[in-house]
């Protein structure tokens, strides 16, 4: 595991540097992918009677606010420019993703389907972790920094 980790880090570090909008965009895309995966898994489970219509409905209701925020966040990012505060809808989307994970984990029985959904959400959360790292490096201001001030990236 350590050798793999070192290999991955060295490979990634070669010629790379922190980016702003791309990490936010990738987070958005990862969330959409997670939602699409959840919807497809719900359909598959329902078609094979692995979950009841009531359980399926709970999953779909849980997706609704995530989809709303995903759309809002994407529209906000389309007009977002480096130096501006991170759109609040993007931050809210990250929080909703965690709620979705809890809902899905409770609704589905342990097994392949649950693992697939949890992995999809975890992947999106990893993308959010990258956003937070970029914020911490000083490239993307948090809403608290509104006023135009941005932190200087450490040299």
């Amino acid at each position, binding site marked *: *595991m350590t050798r*793999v*980790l070192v*290999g*991955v*880090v060295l*490979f*990634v*570090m070669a010629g*790379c*540097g*922190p*980016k702003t*909008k*791309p*990490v936010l*965009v*990738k987070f*958005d*895309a990862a969330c*959409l992918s997670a*939602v*699409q995966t959840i*919807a497809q898994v*719900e*359909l598959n489970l329902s078609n094979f009677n692995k979950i009841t*219509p*009531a359980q*399926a*409905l709970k999953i*779909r*209701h849980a*997706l*609704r606010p995530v*989809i*709303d925020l*995903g*759309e809002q966040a*994407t*529209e906000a*990012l*389309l007009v977002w420019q480096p130096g501006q505060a991170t759109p609040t809808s993007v931050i809210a989307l990250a929080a909703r993703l965690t709620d979705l994970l809890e809902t899905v984990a409770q609704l589905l029985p342990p097994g392949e389907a649950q693992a697939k959904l949890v*992995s999809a959400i*975890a*992947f999106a959360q*990893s*993308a959010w*972790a*990258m956003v937070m*790292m970029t914020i*911490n*490096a*000083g*490239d993307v201001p948090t809403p608290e920094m509104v006023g135009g001030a941005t932190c200087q*990236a*450490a*040299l």
Partner: protein
Amino acid sequence: MPGSTVINGWDFSGWVNLITAMLGLAIPVAQVVAFIRQHLAPEDADAVLREALAGWQAMRAENEARIAELEALVR
């Protein structure tokens, strides 16, 4: 960030923690590398966002239709 190692603007320890977490989730190495490099490579972000917006809108329509279908079953 306390305890972090920043090199040329990179939060090195943050990256290591993230990669460790992703590997711990049994995400294949190739996928981890591709995912992270995609975040760092130049790209047309707006084109990706426009595609994502279409995806979210399609997802909304599909989800609402599915909710209506399930509500009819549950009633």
